[in-house]
C-alpha cells in the first residue's frame, strides 16, 4: 500500500511526464490556451493513459511474455493506444460536442502522444505489478492534467497582462513552460528522490 502511494505522488510531482521527462509537449503547448479545453484534454489523456497502461500490462505479461514475443511491445502498445483513442473520441463526440470541437485535432493526436507510450514503456522498464501499473498510469495522467491546468491558468491570466510585443504568443508560452519545469525540479528532493 505504501508502495502505491509512493508511486502515486512521485509520478505526479517528482517524475512528472511533461516537466521532468519532457514527453507530450505538443498537447501541453497546444491545448493549454483555455481552461475548459485543458480540463477536457487532461481527462481524456488520464483516461487513455490509465486504460492503455493496464491493457498493455495484461498483453505484455499474459500474451507476449508467454509466447516469447517481447520484441513486439512497441507495436502492440501503439495499437492499444490508437484503439483506445478511437473509443474515447467516439464517446466524447457522442456526449459532448463542445468538448469535441474545442479539442479539435488534438484528440486524434493523443494517438501519437509520446507521454502515453512513454508511461506504458516505463511501466515495463520499472517492472511494476499490475496494481502498481494501474496506479502508475493513472497518476501519470493526473500529472499531465495538473501541468496542463496550471499552464492554462497562467496563460489565461497572461491574456490580460501588458506584455512586450516580442514576447507575445509562442515565446512567452515557452518561457512559462521552462519556468514551470524549473519549479517542478524543486520537488525532486521530496521523499528522498
Amino acid at each position, binding site marked *: 500500500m505504501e508502495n502505491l502511494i509512493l508511486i502515486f505522488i512521485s509520478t505526479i510531482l517528482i517524475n512528472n511526464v511533461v516537466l521532468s521527462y519532457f514527453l507530450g509537449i505538443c498537447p501541453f503547448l497546444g491545448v493549454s490556451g483555455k481552461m475548459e479545453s485543458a480540463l477536457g484534454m487532461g481527462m481524456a489523456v488520464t483516461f487513455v493513459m490509465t486504460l492503455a497502461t493496464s491493457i498493455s500490462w495484461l498483453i505484455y505479461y499474459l500474451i507476449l511474455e508467454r*509466447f516469447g*514475443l517481447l520484441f*513486439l511491445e512497441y*507495436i*502492440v502498445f501503439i*495499437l492499444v493506444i490508437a*484503439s483506445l483513442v478511437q*473509443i474515447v473520441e467516439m464517446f466524447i*463526440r*457522442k456526449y459532448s460536442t463542445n468538448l469535441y470541437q474545442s479539442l479539435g485535432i488534438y484528440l486524434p493526436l493523443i494517438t501519437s502522444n509520446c507521454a502515453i507510450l512513454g508511461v506504458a514503456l516505463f511501466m515495463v522498464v520499472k517492472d511494476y505489478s499490475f496494481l502498481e501499473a494501474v496506479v502508475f498510469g493513472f497518476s501519470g495522467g493526473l500529472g499531465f492534467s495538473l501541468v496542463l491546468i496550471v499552464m492554462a491558468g497562467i496563460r489565461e491570466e497572461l491574456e490580460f497582462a501588458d506584455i512586450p510585443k516580442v514576447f507575445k504568443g509562442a515565446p512567452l508560452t515557452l518561457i512559462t513552460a521552462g519556468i514551470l519545469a524549473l519549479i517542478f525540479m524543486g520537488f525532486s528532493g521530496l521523499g528522498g528522490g
Partner: protein
Amino acid sequence: MAQVIAATIVFGLIGLAFSLLLSFLNRKLKVPDDPRVKEILNILPGLNCGACGFSSCKAYAQAIVEDPSKMKGCRPGGDQVNKKVAKAIGKKENLKKQKKMLVVCSCGAEEKDKKTTHNYQGLKNCQSAHITGGAIDCVYGCLGFGDCQEACPVGAITLKNNKVYIDQKKCILCGKCIKACSRNLFKIIPAKELGNYFIACNNKDRLKEVKDVCNRGCITCGICTKVEDSPYELVDNLSRINYKNIKNKKSLEEGKNKCPTNCIDIIN
C-alpha cells in the same frame, strides 16, 4: 521461423480483437450528421471569410442548424443566399434586410501627391514600412505596398499609382483589409442614394504640416463645414461626414467642389 509465425498470429489476433471492439462501438455510438448542414454548406459561398462571427462556413452552418436564432446572415452571400438558408433550416420570420455598407480607403493621394524626402529600402510590405516610419513622409497615409490587396479574399482591391481602388461589386465586406492595413485607412460607410461621398484623407495634422507631406491632404480649413446644411464637421483636425445628418445632395456636392485640396471623394 516459428517465432515469425507466432508473432504474426499473436499480433493479428490482438489487432482483430481491437477492430471488432471498435466496429461494435462505432455502431453503438454513431452520431448521425444532420443532412441540413451539408445542404446549407452548399448554399453558402464557401469563402470562410468569418464576417458572420464563426470561424468557417461549416461552423456557421452547424451553429444555425442547432440554434436558428443564431442566424445573423451571410454578408458575402447577400439577401438571396440568406433567404435560401432560412428556408433550409425552416426559419419563418423574415430576416431584417441588411443595410448596405461600403468600404472606402481614406487616403486618396496618388504617387505624385505624396511627398518623400527619404529613400525606403526595407521590406516591400506596409507592415514593415509602417514600423520604420514609412516610405512616404505622411505618417497617416497609404504606404502603397498592397497589404490590403493581398489580404482581400475576392480580389476587389487594386492599386494604381500607389492609390487603392475598391471594386464595390466584388467587395464582400469581410473586413480583412481593415485588419491588414497598418494605418487603419479602411472605413465602412453606409451606402446612400444621394451618392457615396467620403473624406479621402486620414491626416490629423494642421495646415502646414499637411501641406509639407501631401498635395491632397485635408488641411483643416473648414470650408466644407460652412456650406448651407452642411453634413461636414471637423473632428481631430480632419473633416468628417456625419452620415446621419445628410440633408440634401447639394450641400455634399458644394462641399466637395469647394475643398481646396480636393480631398473629398465619391464612389461611382
